[in-house]
Structure formats: structure tokens, C-alpha cells
């Protein structure tokens, strides 16, 4: 049986895209399961700058 990912096949150019989908799925499920907020505020930090918006509206 022919390897569907052989050079020249339709699947060849998207082979790394399939790997990326698998990696993203695994990473996202890990972040979701552990309650981790990806690329976001994760605690132990202070949020700054809220006064700015108050003064803006004054």
C-alpha cells in the first residue's frame, strides 16, 4: 500500500499541519484540564493601570 504522505501526494504538504493539530489538541486539553489560562493572567501578579481608565472618563 502506498504511503499517503509520500512526496508528491496530496497529503505531503499538510503532513506537518496534521502534527500541529495533534500538538495543539494535546496542549489545549492539558491547559483545559489543569485549569490553566493559556497566554493569560495566572495569579501571583497584580493587574495595573485601572486608574487610567477612571481618569479618562472624568
Amino acid at each position: 500500500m502506498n504511503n499517503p504522505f509520500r512526496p508528491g501526494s496530496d497529503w505531503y504538504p499538510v503532513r506537518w499541519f496534521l502534527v500541529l493539530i495533534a500538538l495543539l489538541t494535546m496542549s489545549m486539553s492539558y491547559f483545559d484540564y489543569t485549569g490553566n489560562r493559556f497566554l493569560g493572567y495566572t495569579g501571583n501578579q497584580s493587574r495595573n493601570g485601572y486608574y487610567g481608565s477612571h481618569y479618562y472618563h472624568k
Partner: protein
Amino acid sequence: MGKETGLYQCPACSQSLIFQSKETRIKVCTCGAIANRLESDDLVKKSAFTIGDHNDLIQPGTTGTYKGQSFEVIGRFRLWLAESVYNYWTIVFAGGTPAILAEGYGMYAILQTMRPESNITAWDISRLEVADSISVTNEVPWYLQRRDKAWKYELEGEVWMPECTDQFELFDLYARGDRHVEAIQYLKDYIVFYNVDFVEYSSLNLQNLNTGTPEPKQVFCANCNTNIEVKTFPYAQSCSCTGCGTRFAFKDAGSGFRTLKQDTGNDNALAIQLGSKGTIKGIDYEVIGYALKEEDNAEAARWKEYVLYNRAEGYAFLSEYAGSWLYARERGNSPVIGSNSPDSIYYKGAEYDLYNRYSIRIVDTAGEFPYDIFDDERKIVSAEFIAPPIMWIYERSREEGINWFVGEHLDKKELERQFPGAALPAQTERGVLDPRGRTNLPLLIKTTFAGIIILTLVHFLVGFGQQQRTVFSGDLQLRDSTASSTFVSPKFTLHKWRSNLAFDLTSPVDNNWIDMEATLVNAGNGQEYSLQQTVEYYHGVDDGESWSDGDTHETAYLSSIPGGDYFLRIEASRDTTNGAWSSVRDLAVTVKNDVPMHRNLFIFLGMLLVWPVVAYIWFYVNERRRWQNSPYTPYKTTSS
């Protein structure tokens, strides 16, 4: 003597002649006479040419298999067409049924007689032009793709062939879906239809082949007194003197190679020398010819073509333009066209777009060539249709019809490995079939949607298993005179190995704010996790337009908190700029553990989409480059 036993006597020398098949009609005796078995079962002498050379790989006695049935080759008739030579080997299957194994130029086909569904006469066929349609079977249209005239036939062994005139015509009718019929007009009013099934050489499992070394044809170049060896005669029908560039073509019904004019240029700038040997796509080839070709138009684009030969797999062509390489072979199973100048063709579910259409001039040559590449009178028009990395090329001559070649991109490094002595030029332009940047867009779109669905499903499946448990809920009230107050929650337990806490804050803020600073304290080890979130809502009217900003409800998260016992210390602060008495004093806080965070899904979907977007841009840039030399480019730029 007779059909029952197969035993006869040669009408010339009286030797015993044994016919292996009841269906065959001709047998060449060892004395050289040709015996013709009549309907009356009598043998009479027949006048025809016999084959003197035995350079072919297949020979009488060769065995093979076709669709699981074994067969034996018992003889052949060889047809000399205008510029080519084909063998029609008589084969007999184990049950005694005869058929024809047609062979030449690396193409193999099994021919078995058939009867068209409609009554087609010789006149019906002979009036057809190339690409005209005719009804052979009723369900699909059949198109005339080639018509050839056999100016000579030769015989060897025992031959399945009806009575025929010395010269006769052949018509190739093709229907889409690799369906082929060949009609041979043996007599003026007698035409035989054959179903043609093109097969690969390897599928025939041929045994008992002729392993003798073929004898080359010697062609003398009187211009520079040298002998040219044509290794693949009679299939090579033209050659060129490497020394002086004098051209020769096999012409005029057997009068031999005729001297033509000399090459217009004779620099013989071969990147791969004649006689070089290498393997391409698993086939061992020898380079036997070279031609520098030029488009017969204002562009006059030039490219180099090398003729490759393998005794079993026939001829192939290596074409080089601007350092890009293309490997092409003639194929019987091919697209079928029903018009003279299609803009696209379809074959096996794929669409191939017209890339170029041109006639050629031959500038420089060396070695030998199948067909007669010097014949300008044929007015050959070539057209290239591409769906990278595959190209279909047709060469159409006005009189004979269409030959199809399939080409594919060949990697330069692979070619250098196979021909180590070759001095391959550097690539200066993106090759027509270069697969770099090529993507099957529908497949990319389908894969992207599949990825989106998978990520979404996994996200919601994980969310479905999350606890979403409220660990604290309280309405925090600030005293009238204070700007801030601190509250401490009862102890609670986070059971999961790691999980998050979602803080839902609600406050009736109205042109002011209230702020929460929460500290989650691990009761066991004192580890603290802090969080700050403001609830603010402002609104008003500026220049007659109302505006609002913020909300009375906010959500904040503490992420990935280890399991354990915890309590919360919450400090609420409020906006007292207009006086503490008039300021907001209520803050409702609900803390939930192990809640889904849909933001993760959107971020990961965004990351997923980067690939198809970049792939499409890369595809577009490369396709523009690929089509830049084509007059049929779909990437037209508007000229100012």
C-alpha cells in the same frame, strides 16, 4: 494434416509445420517461406516480408501472464508506420485463445477482438478527423485520437492476422476512463476492432526473453566520414552526427537513413553525456540522444531534452529548463480530448490546466531519437497541461493525431546522485512542476475544518468532566465611612491535582468603581496566590451622544492552583472621590473551582489558523511564480 492436429507441410520445402493455434493463419517456415492457411485448411505460399533482425526483448517462446491467465508468444507482425515501428505479437492463452500483445516505445497493450455496438463501416472510420467522435459503445462518446498508415508489415513465427493488403490503416479510438479500441482496416472493406488494454511491462511477468545483445544500425556520415551507431533501430527513426551535426532520418519506405540538413547550432552543450547510465523511478536508463529545442514563436524559449532508453521500458525524456528537470514518458492510458484546443483536461478525477501551447524548432542534436524529430512537415503542436507535480503533454500532428506523454518533476539532487558525472546547471527559475509551495487547497480547507472540530470537541469534552463547584459565595459590604474592608472566607478544599478558581464579581457601580484584591492562602504551607479585579461602570453624554464603559459584572481567574486546603482573604476598596457616603458599598463575590475557560479554545483555534493562512499565501506566491512564463496564466496583472 489439418486444424485438428495442427500438422501441415510447408508448401515451399515440404518440411513439417506445426500450428499451435487453430485461429492463426500464417506461419513462417524455417526455410523462409510464408505459409498461409486458407479457410479450406489448405496451405499456400504467401508473399510478404519476414523479420531478419532479432533485437527485441520479446521473442517467440516468451511466456507471460495477463489477468491471471498465462500465455505464450508464438509470432508477430511488425508494422512500419510513418515514423515509428510497432510489434503486434501473437499470443496464445492456455485455453488456445489467441490475442495480440502490442508493444513499442515502452508501451504494452493486450488486444482482443470486439464488435462495436453500432454497425461501423470502414467508410465511417476513414472519414473521421482527429478528435471527431463516433459511437463504438452506446453509453460514452469515443474520439479518434490517432490514425496511422502501415506502409510495410513483416512476419515472424506463427501469426494471428487476417488477409490484408500490403499497406493498411489503423485508427485509435479512445473514450474517457482509459477505454481504447483500435480499428485496423486490413482490406478496403474489412475492418477488425480490437479492445486495447494498456498494461505495465512488469505486470506481464514475461519470461524466456531474448537476452542477446542488440545489434546497432550503422549510419555513415559522409560529411565527416564517421559511423553513427543507432542502438535502438528500428524504433529510433532519426539520428544526428555528434561530430558535425548532420541530421539523418529513416525515410521513404525502407530506403534507409536519408541525410538531412545540419544543426543550426552544434555546440553539443550536454549536461549529461550520451552513454551515461542512471536510474530514474526505478528504471535503469542510458542516455542515447540530446536535442536543444526552441519554441517556434517570438518568445523562442529554449530547453534541452535528453532521450533515455531502457530495453524493456522503452524511451523516456529528461527535459531541462532554467535548471529545473522534468521526466516524461509516453503513455497509452491518457486523457482523451474531443476538441482541437482544450483549455483544460480531466484525467482520473484531476483537472489539468493549459500551461503552454507551441510548435518547436530543433536547434542542436546529438545521438538518436524515437520517431523523426526533424520532420517539420508534420507541423506538430505541443500542449502542456499541469496539475503539479504532474504534467500531461500532447503532441499532435495534423495527419497522425495525438501522442500523450506524462511528465513529472525530478529533483536535481536525485538526478545528480543517479548521474554523478553530470554537470547540472543551477536552477534559476521556479520549475513548472516544482512541488514546493504546492498545496491541495480543498484538502487544506477540509483539514483545517477537521482541526477546528477536533479542538472544539476536545475542549468541551474536558469541560464536561470539570467539577464547577462553588467554594465561596458572599455579599461583601463596606461600612459607610471606610474606603476599604477585608473579609476572610471559611476554609475549603480543592480536590483536583491542579485546577482553577473563577471569581464572579457583581457590584451596582454607577460612574464609579469597586476593586477586589483577593489572596488565596494554602492553609497547609502558607503559599499565597493573589488576584486583583476592578468592577467599574461609567456612562454619560458627550456632544449629544451617550456613551458607556465597563460593566457591573466581572470575572477573574486564578489558574492552575495545586490541590489542598485553602482560605480566601478578600480586600474590597471603593471609589471615594465623591465622598464615601455616596459611594457603592456592595460587592457580591462567588468563587467556583474547576471551571472551563473558553478563552483557551479561541487562542488555540487562532494558532491553528496560522498554518492554513501562511500556507495559502505561500501557495499563491509560488503559483504566480510557476505561471509567470505561461501565456495562459490565471494570475494576470493589469498593465497600466
